[in-house]
């Protein structure tokens, strides 16, 4: 609101500056600094998603190799560290990246919302009474605030589904991801949920992986044309890889028809481990 007062500015500031924290924490007090955090955590999260997708391709090698892959994640660091110690450190890092990515996103959306209040808001973006035309903004960039929450909710579902085994109940066998994946994704609604969430993820990465270059100030006229291509490639790779799991399970490619080992945490997993050994030997 316009105010002609003895204050510093003619128009009252929308956001109040708070007392500055010591370096480097003060970086997080500013929007530009927060965008750095969002970009850096985004890089980490894309790295995780990519590794997660590539690792899961082991499912196409059968239950034994999948079991071996899952087991080797727990034994990163070998005999040097307690079992699962490195995995837990990675999980902790991943969790903090999620928290920072989410917090910066939510707080910056709120900042933009307050900066556009008088213009009215529709789906988190500024609105004009007579409508407006988007020229440069892509569908992906305008839906970041929707694809983000969809992904966050999906991750919770995904953890409950395949890490904690809440929905599978007695069908869930710890240490036998092949069995869990093929059981869970053979239900059509679950497969559709995974497909929807991964399409949202691809849209999110399509904008995010381009946007992070700008946020981090990585801009060189010689290479700028590659940034959009890289984002498209990343989004495409992750989309194709991740969609293959629900689609091929529904198509019957990931099933347990040819399974030789029994299903169960003790004898089943021992058998899978032996089978994997056998493959290598």
């Amino acid at each position, binding site marked *: *609101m*316009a105010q002609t007062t003895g204050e*510093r*500015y*003619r*128009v009252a*500031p*929308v*956001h*109040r*500056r708070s007392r*500055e924290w*010591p*370096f*480097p924490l*003060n*970086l997080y007090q*500013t*929007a*530009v*600094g*927060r965008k*750095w955090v969002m970009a850096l955590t985004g890089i980490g999260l894309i790295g995780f998603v990519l590794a997660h997708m590539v690792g899961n391709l082991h499912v196409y090698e059968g239950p034994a190799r999948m079991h071996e892959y899952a087991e080797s994640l727990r034994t990163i660091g070998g005999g040097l560290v307690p079992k699962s110690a490195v995995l837990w450190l990675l999980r902790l890092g991943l969790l903090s990246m999620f928290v920072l990515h989410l917090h910066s996103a939510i707080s*910056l*959306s709120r*900042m*933009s919302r*307050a*900066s*556009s*209040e*008088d*213009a009215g808001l529709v789906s988190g*973006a*500024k609105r*004009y*009474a*007579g*409508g*407006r*035309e*988007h*020229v*440069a*903004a*892509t569908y992906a*960039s*305008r839906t*970041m605030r929707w694809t983000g929450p969809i992904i966050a909710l999906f991750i919770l579902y995904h953890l409950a589904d395949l890490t904690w085994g809440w929905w599978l109940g007695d069908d869930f066998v710890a240490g036998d991801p092949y069995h869990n994946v093929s059981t869970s994704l053979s239900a059509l609604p679950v497969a559709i949920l995974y497909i929807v969430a991964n399409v949202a993820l691809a849209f999110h990465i399509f*904008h995010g992986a*381009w946007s992070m*270059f*700008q*946020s*981090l*100030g*990585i*801009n060189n*006229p010689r290479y*700028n044309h590659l940034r959009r291509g890289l984002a498209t490639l990343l989004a495409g790779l992750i989309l194709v890889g991740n969609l293959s799991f629900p689609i091929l399970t529904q198509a019957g490619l990931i099933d347990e028809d040819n399974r030789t080992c029994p299903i169960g945490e003790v004898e089943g997993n021992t058998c899978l481990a032996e089978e994997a050994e056998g493959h290598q030997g």
Partner: protein
Amino acid sequence: MSGSHGETINVTLKVWRQTSADAPGGFETHQQAISTDASFLEMLDLLNEELNAAGKEPIAFESDCREGICGTCGVMINGRAHGPQKATATCQLHMREFADDDEIVIEPFRATGFPVIRDLAVDRSPLDAIIEAGGYISVNTGAASDANLTPVPKAAADQAFDAAACIGCGACVAACPNSAAQLFTSAKIGHLGLLPQGQAERWSRTEAMVETMEEFFGSCTNHGECTEACPKEISLDFIALMNRDYMKAKVKNRGLAGQH
């Protein structure tokens, strides 16, 4: 256009009317017959003359040089800042861009940091506050120094000139879905930060201008709407440069715990 006469078109104008920042606003519809040779603002001038003659309050809008270099004019035309023509300020937009029977919606630039003064005029003084925070260089000598005393590399001169083309109209803020002022601020920071004369205050300037900007405006999400709306086609590259310089500035200007 020597000798040629434009045709006359009839347009329906839906113009935003609002008596003050706190008063509710709404659209008012007018029919206007206008030559396609007329500029957009000339059309509003003619409409205002008619309103005046009829004893009605004319539509408040801002303009000054009317040759696209001062940055005073600027309205949303059919949902686009400065209207449909690329790289053109509102004053340089002509009615030949429109067709007979077109409906033209005219709204003020909108952002919380741009409160409406009246009708289509908004208070863009937050942009001045950003300039006051550091958009200058200090030359502490007696008389002005000779021109060309400081050699400027060609590449730096070209880029700085591209940034200096910013006329400060605020279309970037108006077009931004987040009401962010990144393009304006980065053009000003880039303009001075690329030149030798701007080096002494480069880091204090970047920090002060960015933080003043953040008192009024939203957070950039790299949509790219600003560059499209910009009558001077300022590049998004300057936003990246600002983001890089800001981080460097915070590191250079850092105060550790207890040093504040």
